[in-house]
């Protein structure tokens, strides 16, 4: 039997005003296991804590019940007190007789009676408490950032800045992501390349950062502090260390008609290519789908012209295994496919383009050298119609669009409209909008400038139909404010396509056991309290993989994710929450039910040999809880039929003892 001490706090008159604290202390003296019971003005005060310590020593207490305010207030305090007195800090239970008793009840007899019952429940629980020690696990002081867009770049730079090594894994041959394809950025209208490329160079030059471009993550094992990650380095047929990025190979490559994905297929590149001038790493890549040498074995020109001897047609995919303490997901977004929106004739006319395509058409490094020309006939468009919310806020057509608002379209459309009107004042620009959403610093001012200073025609309504006819795009839409149907002959129609998470996110989420919402955006551990962490410990979220974001937001989230990673990597050891699930192997059926309800992927199974009571051995599949990953919710304990799974600190027995004590 335990030797329990009960300490009843007056909390001035907060408790003592409605609860006869002396009576509570007296009543508790008669409870089985209680060897000492007393009351005091302020238990949480220095003197109160000293009193507890003294009592622990004098009465050899091995369990403490403090009847006081909410455990959410002072449980930590009294746990420290217990530890200071030489007790395990988890041998403390709090009876909440303030918030849940004295403050909600008015009459002394009622309050006192309930306080005694709550105290009895706490005594019943503490009688079954066992000392708990938080598990420790070492931290590998290296981070992995998956995705090399602005989110990944910023996160990596910030982590490296704090002195920790970081690896970036990027599927494309270069880092830079979507931002590298943008022309200007809102609301300042500064050039995207001017702010991004220096950061890319920083990354390349930072000794703490390794870039695995043209690579992908294929497997993740382990848990916070110790993730074992397999990275596939796709064969690029060019030796990265030897290649100087001189570009001689690309010039000589006879395969010139490969659609250039950097310019969204609006011009061509060679089979061996460097995506763009400021690419990092600036090395060539051979596209195996188009290279004559790789396809038919006939050519080899690039190899001949390469002074560095970097071309290697025999290269194979390589797999690297690395260990990381933390993983940041920054897989980003893509505009959704416009192919299915027949009404906008995207597939029928080259002059119906997406906003991202417009970015390339306006960019000096783009297919038109920065002059806005219609893709079909390379003429200057004079009438341009922008259509907002294409595929966004679209509930009815799940196979085409997305239910959510893509958030960035209102602002970039205003930017486009403004830039066009600025550069080509003879152009008529119409923007069909449902709502104009501009929450953000200087955002609404920006939009108003488009209307007021640049004369962009904003029309409340939606385009219903675009019909290509004799080189003109007949746009039919509604003007809800004027209550009329508009018919505009446009030269160019720009669709603000909804954005969706990158397709690589879903399989990655499975590898990481990180949860996703139905739209395949990663779920944050808590929308307000832990917005940059995934519920899976050690996995952090940066940028649009978590939800639509503009660049300022992405960069700030990237910084936040980095600071969370730094906070983790600073530690030499991780102390777990000791109140974690534990499976009794002798009772476990290995049925995999608990694994299914675990939100953290903390449960795995292993075949284990058991010596049976009849002296035979038997191999059985049993569950194993990874204490470093378990967060202690207890979902598994109820899913477990045999009761093999229990939760330390909230054991079945303890909760039932509380129930019993309350229902006495």
């Amino acid at each position, binding site marked *: 039997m335990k030797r329990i001490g009960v300490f009843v706090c007056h909390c001035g008159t907060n408790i003592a005003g409605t609860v006869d604290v002396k009576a509570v202390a007296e009543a508790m003296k008669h409870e089985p296991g209680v060897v000492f019971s007393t009351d005091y003005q302020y238990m949480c005060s220095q003197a109160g804590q000293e009193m507890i310590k003294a009592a622990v020593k004098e009465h050899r207490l091995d369990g403490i019940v403090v009847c006081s305010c909410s455990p959410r207030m002072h449980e930590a305090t009294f746990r420290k007190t217990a530890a200071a007195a030489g007790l395990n800090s988890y041998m403390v239970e709090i009876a909440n007789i303030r918030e849940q008793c004295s403050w909600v009840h008015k009459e002394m007899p009622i309050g006192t009676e309930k306080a005694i019952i709550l105290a009895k429940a706490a005594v019943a629980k503490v009688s079954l408490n066992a000392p708990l020690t938080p598990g420790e696990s070492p931290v590998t002081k290296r981070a992995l950032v998956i995705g090399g867009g602005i989110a990944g770049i910023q996160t990596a730079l910030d982590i490296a800045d704090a002195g920790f090594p970081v690896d970036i894994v990027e599927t494309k041959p270069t880092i830079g992501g979507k931002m590298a394809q943008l022309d200007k950025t809102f609301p300042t209208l500064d050039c995207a390349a001017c702010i991004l490329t220096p950061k890319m160079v920083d990354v390349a030059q930072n000794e703490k950062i390794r870039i695995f471009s043209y690579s992908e993550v294929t497997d993740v094992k382990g848990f916070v502090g110790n993730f074992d990650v397999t990275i596939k380095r796709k064969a690029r047929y060019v030796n990265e260390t030897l290649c100087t990025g001189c570009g001689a190979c690309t010039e000589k490559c006879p395969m010139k008609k490969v659609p250039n994905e950097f310019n969204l297929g609006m011009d061509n590149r060679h089979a061996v290519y460097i995506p763009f001038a400021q690419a990092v790493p600036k090395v060539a890549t051979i596209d195996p789908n188009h290279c004559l040498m790789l396809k038919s074995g006939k050519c080899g020109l690039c190899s001949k012209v390469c002074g560095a001897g970097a071309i290697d047609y025999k290269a194979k995919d390589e797999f690297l295994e690395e260990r990381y303490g933390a993983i940041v997901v920054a897989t980003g977004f893509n505009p959704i496919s416009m192919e299915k929106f027949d*009404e906008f004739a995207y597939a029928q006319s080259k002059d119906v383009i997406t906003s991202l395509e417009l970015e390339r058409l306006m960019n000096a490094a783009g297919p038109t050298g920065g002059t806005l020309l219609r893709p079909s006939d390379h003429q200057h468009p004079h009438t341009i119609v922008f259509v907002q919310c294409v595929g966004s*806020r*679209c509930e009815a*057509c799940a196979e085409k669009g997305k239910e959510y608002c893509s958030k960035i379209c209102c602002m970039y459309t205003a930017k486009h409209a403004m830039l066009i009107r600025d550069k080509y004042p003879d152009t008529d620009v119409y923007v069909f909008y449902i*709502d104009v959403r501009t929450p953000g610093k200087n955002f609404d001012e920006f939009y108003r400038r488009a209307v007021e200073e640049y004369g962009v025609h904003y029309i409340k309504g939606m385009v219903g139909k675009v019909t290509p006819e004799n080189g003109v795009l007949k746009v039919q*839409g*509604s003007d809800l404010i004027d209550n009329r*149907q508009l018919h505009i002959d446009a030269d160019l129609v720009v669709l603000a396509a909804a954005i969706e998470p990158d397709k690589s996110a879903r399989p990655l989420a499975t590898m990481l056991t990180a949860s996703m919402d139905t739209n395949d955006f990663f779920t944050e551990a808590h929308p307000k309290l832990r917005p940059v962490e995934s519920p899976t410990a050690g996995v952090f979220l940066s940028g649009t993989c978590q939800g639509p974001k503009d660049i300022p937001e992405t960069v700030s989230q990237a910084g936040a994710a980095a600071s969370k990673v730094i906070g983790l990597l600073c530690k030499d050891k991780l102390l777990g929450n000791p109140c974690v699930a534990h499976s009794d192997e002798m009772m476990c059926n290995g049925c995999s039910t608990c694994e299914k309800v675990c939100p953290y992927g903390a449960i795995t199974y292993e075949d284990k040999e058991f010596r049976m009571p009849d002296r035979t051995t038997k191999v059985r599949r049993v569950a194993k809880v990874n204490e470093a990953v378990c967060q202690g919710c207890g979902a598994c304990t109820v899913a477990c039929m045999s009761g093999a799974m229990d939760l330390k600190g909230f054991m079945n027995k303890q909760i039932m003892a509380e129930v019993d004590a309350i229902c006495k």
Partner: protein
Amino acid sequence: MSQKNDRAKEQILKMSGVNPLKCMRCGKCSGTCPSYDEMEYHPHQFVYMVETGEIDKLMQSPSIYKCLSCFACVDRCPRGVEPAKLVEAVRLTVIRQKGMNHMTADSIPALLDDDLPQQAIVSAMRKYSK
């Protein structure tokens, strides 16, 4: 102040199975409507007016016979509101309430056009009479 007709509204909602509250007022229905200029009240207005209960105005409007039932608005509505079904429901309500056919069998020969497919005549009869 609009004349509200809550009972008629309820009936129309029931008949059509449409929830006008899903409408986000984008106007794509009206943007896409081929009969727009013929109509006094446009598809998006049908949605709005049913929601506010202004059924009587709709019932008295020739608009209900101008809708071609091409269902472009239904197809393109991003919220799945289905304005054409509301038009249909209002039309049906008129026919049911008044026992008044928009056209009678007798009046048809005069309207006939040799090029009109048989199917269209039959479907027009179905649509415009009880």
